[in-house]
């Protein structure tokens, strides 16, 4: 293994899981997300010399976003693109949980509701939320990934969080958590 390959694996390939998760939440089905990630890794490999940041994560996720966008353009004719919430662990269709008289919302139900809410967010809000909460990027990094000013990042983040705020709150138990 060459020296360049070793550095690439240590700096970029370590973010493979993040790249995959981000591709999934950009609205890619599992196989599509895998194609996107492979393409993104190849582009990252070819552009590795251009990497200036000490942390490659945001850089890689920006490439993933570009790859997903070009796949999306190629695909638009094909129509429907399933989101991760439609591929639950048991493959069941997504439904809002019905009101439980005792008010117990199971972990699994909550997870499904969460996925659904997230999937139903406008994409520009969803990506910002995922980058912040799941991938733990800071505002500056998120702004770089999506190519928008920090103020835009903040307002999208705020709106996305507003849409999810009832989730997990004690008074939401037993109510159907459907998006308004």
């Amino acid at each position, binding site marked *: 293994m*060459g020296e360049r390959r070793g550095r690439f694996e240590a700096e970029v390939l370590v973010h*493979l899981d993040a790249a995959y998760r981000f591709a999934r939440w950009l609205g890619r089905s599992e196989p599509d997300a895998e194609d996107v*990630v492979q393409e993104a*890794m*190849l582009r990252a*490999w070819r552009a590795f010399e251009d990497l200036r940041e000490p942390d490659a994560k945001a850089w890689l996720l920006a490439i993933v976003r570009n790859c997903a966008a070009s796949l999306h353009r190629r695909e638009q004719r094909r129509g429907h693109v399933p989101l991760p919430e439609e591929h639950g662990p048991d493959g069941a269709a997504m439904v809002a949980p019905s009101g439980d008289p005792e008010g117990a919302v199971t972990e699994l139900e909550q*997870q499904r509701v969460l996925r659904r809410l997230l999937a139903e967010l406008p994409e520009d809000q969803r990506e910002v939320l995922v980058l912040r*909460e*799941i991938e733990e990027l800071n505002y500056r990094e998120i702004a770089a990934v999506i190519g928008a000013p920090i103020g835009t990042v903040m307002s999208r983040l705020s709106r996305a969080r507003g849409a999810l705020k009832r989730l997990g709150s004690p008074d939401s138990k037993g109510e159907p958590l459907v998006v308004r």
Partner: protein
Amino acid sequence: MSCAESLRVQAYFDGELKSGEAGDVEEHLTQCVPCQGLLEELERTRTTLRRSLAGERASPALRARVMRALDAEESPPARARRPRAWHVRPFWIGALSGASGLAVAAAGAFLLFTAVSSNAVLEAVTDAHVRSLSSRHLIDVVSSDRHTVKPWFAGRTDVSPPVADFAAQGYRLLGGRTENLGHERAAVLVYQHGAHLINVFSWSARTPLPAQAVRSGYHMVLWKSGDIESCAVSDAGWDELNALVGLIKGVSANDTPH
């Protein structure tokens, strides 16, 4: 969440404020009930999101695929040339055996084509061997137990080679994997012998191949058992490689056919 400070509270929560500004927000929070509620909400949403979604990971298959794509990228000629040569082989062999009347007239051509195609096979095997050493795709099923490895091959490869561990003789079975060699799905057993790794490839025999060869400095010992062609590849010496092949042949001889 109607307070004009809500975006600053959010920035405070995200750790984006400098200490002076953070102090201002903390002071505001002691007086503003809606902002206190907002802060709690932000925390709850984050906890739920991270607990349920941050654990999702890329599959081992995707990881292997990316590694192989990077390998191919590192050595572009191997990708462009060799699989194509392999792909051509069955066509020539089929054409020649079907036209047996022409075989004598085509003897010269036959030798040439055989040389080309066997060379393609040897190169494909060597490529796969080198890839397995340079990437992490050395072993798909880790086991020294033949009862684990042999069934694992079923359905994944075109052949079912004998599987045995020879740790007592100095050849430890590490596990197995599959390799696509052109259109063939080869079964590969991985042995360790001292500092050497030995890959033993098996696939359906079609092309006449030499008993031994050297490619890119690697020793290759080849043999046929029934309709299975096998090839042991390593940087180990000839004697060491032949000893392993002898052991494997001993097992094949005792294996009841099925």
